[in-house]
């Protein structure tokens, strides 16, 4: 990267070694300010669409901001201007019993989903290396197909699979003598309901993990594994002591990405519960959304969003550091 940059910069002097004194002003200006002109448009769009909202988010979190304030914003004669309330929104969150329940629920949900996705995905990747080529290609094709499914489409499909009346899952479970599931409502019990959500999330996330891990596995030198086997290591020991250490950077990236995605799960729950999730289906993102757009308590919603932001920040540091490392090496 750096090498490429300096090579470009050196080119003109090599081209005109005699007329060094007359390095054209235009070239010098272009070289000095060119990069900034090139990145400017992206910074403008990002700054406009994200810069202001990020600032606004922090502002809202310290304000009392409801419907009268929304009205006031479009027409100063109506409603009321927002009032500053200091840390009241955060104090409310931390003393709110529901907040802690939702936070714990989200953490458990994230742990279960990330764990299931990573374990199944990695296991599948390992298995894929041990099957015949046609089967591996078929599986890859199916995985890519599932990966490509729009999130909302997959939610509607799973909703239909678990339908109370005519869902194929209820029928199959009953036929397999696992109990009487005819007309079973999966959403009555939130634990079962989150089971359905987990199916949707994990089903949709496995392809990315499996395909990426498979690609990574194929970069592990076969000789190393062979050597370990000769030394008498078992399959699990080889994975634990040889393969896994090499895959560590990939695993770090995939795990942090999965945490970031699963902690923010929104559409799956929202659409499965027909846009009106009950309080026992609240995850952090749903909680913040409902407080803002249904209870019209925008200040409290913003405070909750900032809590999400802070949790994400912790995970992101790991991910961004790993990515910047890769970007720099290349």
């Amino acid at each position: 990267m750096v090498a490429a940059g300096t090579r470009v910069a050196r080119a003109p002097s090599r081209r005109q070694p005699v007329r060094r004194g007359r390095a054209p002003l235009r070239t010098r200006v272009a070289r000095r300010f060119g990069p900034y002109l090139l990145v400017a448009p992206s910074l403008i769009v990002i700054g406009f669409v994200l810069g202001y909202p990020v600032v606004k988010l922090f502002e809202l979190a310290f304000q009392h901001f409801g419907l009268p304030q929304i009205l006031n914003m479009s027409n100063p004669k109506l409603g009321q201007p927002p009032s500053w309330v200091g840390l009241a929104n955060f104090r409310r969150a931390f003393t709110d019993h529901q907040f802690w329940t939702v936070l714990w629920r989200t953490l458990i949900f994230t742990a279960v989903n990330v764990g299931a996705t990573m374990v199944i995905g990695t296991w599948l990747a390992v298995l894929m290396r041990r099957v015949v080529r046609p089967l591996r290609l078929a599986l890859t094709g199916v995985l890519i197909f599932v990966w490509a499914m729009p999130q909302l489409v997959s939610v509607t499909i799973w909703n239909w699979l678990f339908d109370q009346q005519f869902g194929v899952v209820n029928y199959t479970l009953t036929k397999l003598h696992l109990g009487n599931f005819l007309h079973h409502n999966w959403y009555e019990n939130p634990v079962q309901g989150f089971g359905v959500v987990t199916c949707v999330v994990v089903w949709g996330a496995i392809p990315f993990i499996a395909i990426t891990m498979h690609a990574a596995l194929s970069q592990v030198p076969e000789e190393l594994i062979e050597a370990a086997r000769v030394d008498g290591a078992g399959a699990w020991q080889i994975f634990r002591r040889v393969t896994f250490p090499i895959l560590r950077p990939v695993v770090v990236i995939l795990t942090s990405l999965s945490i970031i995605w699963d902690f923010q799960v929104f559409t799956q729950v929202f659409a499965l519960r027909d846009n009106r999730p009950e309080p026992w289906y609240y995850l952090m993102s749903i909680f913040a959304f409902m407080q803002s757009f249904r209870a019209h308590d925008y200040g409290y919603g913003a405070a909750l969003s900032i809590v999400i932001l802070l949790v994400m920040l912790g995970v992101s540091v790991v991910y961004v550091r790993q990515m910047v490392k890769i970007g720099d090496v290349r």
Partner: protein
Amino acid sequence: MTTIPATGVRTSVRVRPRRSGGVTSRAGGVAAHVIVVVVLLLMLFPVYWAVSTSFKRGIDMNRITPLWFPIPGTFQHYRDAWHKDYFLSSLQNSAIVVASVVVISIAVAFLAAVAIARSNFRGRKAYIVLIMAIQMIPQIALILPLFVLLSYVHKQNTIVGLTFTYLAFILPFSIWTLRGFVANIPADLEEAAMIDGCSRFGAFMRVTFPLVAPGLVATAIFAFIQSFNEFIFAYVIMQDNSKWTASVWLESFLTQQQIDWGGLMAGATMLSIPIVIGFLLVQRYVAVGLTAGAVKG
């Protein structure tokens, strides 16, 4: 919108599985095959069931004992979905938003990618960190302030507002992906063209640009997929029924009193086809690129 991470680190090194001979002869070979077949069927079944439902007659759909194959079938659900309220208008809205996002994001991202791939300007590292960090901001946190911002500039409920929103979230990924493509082209090629008498701009247009073209196509398809699939922002920003995008239209099935599963599955199938095709064209840039860089780094 974050279904695809910013991992467009593509290297010129092809990842080739290195296997010793006799893979299947290893212990556990049969078990592995059986498990993979089972997993394959489990992963595929939901998709099969959706497509097969979309072709079933009403009486075949609503029975306790499911009909495993859609025979005799019908196209009625596709006709219903096509004529359902706001289908065509939502498709049109999606088409406008997607086209604008693709064109603008490609142009803007390409410029930025050239800058970070080709010159080592002051603040380059800060810019890269910014690009990476933006993708980590939870979207749910920004819906509210974005909604407030758009109402403030009177752009809520408009295609322009939604387009700019998508751009901000798609640009970081596009920039990062294109950076990989531009960085892979040796600067020596441009130099050679310049020695042969091309201007710097001419060299760029004649040498670099054609080589980056596949990257531009890949990024364009990513932008297409992301903006076509997005749901939450469209749901909040586009409040009039006539302003719905395709994903909001699809979701409107679920909030009806009696869900029309046949129509819903037909609609879902129709809306996934372009996405699946687009995805098949670009998927190799996602996973392979990520790991190639990561393992070596």
